[in-house]
């Protein structure tokens, strides 16, 4: 399967801080790929660079065979990449239906068509009953669901989900996983950032681990948890001590 998204040598500097320093990742069409890494590894920055919210300092982002690094943020959505935010960014004074309609207007300029599509997406994510609620009056779980709905309404080929599970109760997490499976079944490719590995393990075919701004692992989830470099990055590593002890001159 050819990759829908190919990222090579992605780098992002903020002044002298190297937030990203060589991120490589591939997302196969139709798959769910997880992007994980410890706190401060650069996951959200990588996301921002792929989605166009930040301009990468170096490297390439190839989407559907087309170089999109540095493309204006609003154009990336039109190319077919939707996203959610780690900290929810709702349209506070819009109702749920209005917010999702706003997303749907990207491909359906006529309001009537956009509303109809938004209704369909709301039914799909299970927010239909709350369609007349204001975005700011929703629970965290529903706000995250609303962000997913808003992004889905733009009919993306690739959906970037930034910690959609964070802050959810176990029951809400199960609902979210169920929603993810249905999104994949719809034919949407998903790249998701998760801080918590256990959430990703059962659903991601492929995971990419980054640490200190670099890709340190790429492979299956099962292999990831056995990988020495990954464990070292996550645990600050007893292995390293062992290595030092074992190989001390």
């Amino acid at each position, binding site marked *: 399967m050819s990759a829908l998204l190919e990222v090579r040598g992605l780098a992002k500097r903020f002044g002298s801080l190297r937030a990203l320093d060589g991120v490589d990742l591939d997302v196969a069409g139709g798959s769910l790929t997880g992007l994980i890494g410890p706190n401060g590894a650069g996951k959200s920055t990588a996301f921002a660079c792929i989605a166009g919210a930040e301009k990468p300092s170096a490297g390439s982002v190839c989407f559907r065979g087309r170089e999109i690094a540095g493309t204006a943020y609003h154009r990336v959505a039109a190319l077919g990449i939707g996203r959610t935010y780690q900290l929810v*960014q709702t349209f506070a004074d*819009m109702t749920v239906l209005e917010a999702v309609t706003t997303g749907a207007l990207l491909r359906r300029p006529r*309001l009537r068509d956009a509303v109809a599509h938004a209704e369909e997406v709301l039914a799909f994510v299970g927010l239909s009953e709350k369609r007349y609620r204001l975005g700011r009056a929703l629970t965290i779980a529903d706000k995250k669901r609303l962000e997913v709905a808003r992004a889905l309404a733009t009919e993306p080929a690739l959906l970037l989900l930034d910690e959609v599970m964070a802050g959810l109760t176990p029951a809400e997490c199960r609902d979210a996983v169920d929603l993810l499976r249905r999104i994949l079944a719809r034919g949407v490719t998903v790249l998701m950032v998760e801080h918590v590995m256990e959430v990703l393990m059962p659903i991601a075919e492929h995971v990419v681990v980054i640490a200190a701004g670099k890709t340190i692992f790429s492979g299956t989830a099962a292999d990831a948890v056995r990988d020495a470099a990954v464990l070292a990055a996550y645990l600050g590593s007893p292995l390293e001590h062992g290595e030092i002890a074992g190989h001390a001159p």
Partner: protein
Amino acid sequence: MTAKPHLYALGAIVVLGLLAAFGLHEAVVLDLVFTLLLYAVLGQSWNWISGYAGNISFGHAIFFGCGAYASALCVTHGLSPWLAIPAGALAAAALALVTGFPTLGLRGHYFSIATIAVAALVETFARTTPWLGKANGFELPIASGWAALQFPQKGPYVVLALVLFAAVQLATIALERSRLGYYLRALRANHAAAASVGIDERRCKLIAFAWSAMMASAAGVLYAQYTLFIDPPSTLALAISIDIALIGVVGGIGTLWGPAAGALVYVVLAKAVALRFGGAGKGYDLVIYGAIICLIAALRPYGIVGTIVDALRRRRGAVA
């Protein structure tokens, strides 16, 4: 969603206005009605860029001035004042695009600052430019009839203001039900999230600003034809820009009827307070008017219509 209640309300206002225009002969009352409609148009014009799009303009008088000066220039050069409607609109839109292009994509208050600066610049330019009448402004030669857009009675002016008001309200009803309207509200709420669903901030806001400027210009044409005298203080001054912004804020930012409500409060309150406490050069009327504005701002920050909308939402349970 449905526009019907708004259309009925607008229809009722138009009928009432026409009854006033043809039935009433008291010049003072007709003058009040005309002023009210004109301010409602200016408030709505401001509301497009500052209410729906959320970029507060403190220089809206210059767009009003574009229309007023276009009218004065046309008439004094022997051209039809009707020509001033497109000419003023063109000038106002151009001014809006030049002001908005570098500033509407920026975060923070750069746009508001730019509007103040450009307004000051335009006012000074008009004050010092011979072909714009310098500080003296223009007196329009007296004429009569629809071709000259001048009338001996006030009735036809009220009809014209009513037509303009209805047109602006209809355009706003259409805006609220259009992609542009949704996009502006989304941008006001959260520009980053708006970009993530493909909204081009600068493009949307420039379009809104240009329309906003053109509406204000149309009001300016009507004003010049009504007073037959314009000069920088009466059409371009910062005080007028602030009045326009106040009307928008008091009525309720980003609401269809907010500007009309704000204009009603402004005209009735300003006139009532002026009649009761004004005169004798003591300025009590301004103090009282200012205090009332402060009270509204402190107690009802969403304005009159914003408060009503919120109450309706609460009743429907939209807000937990």
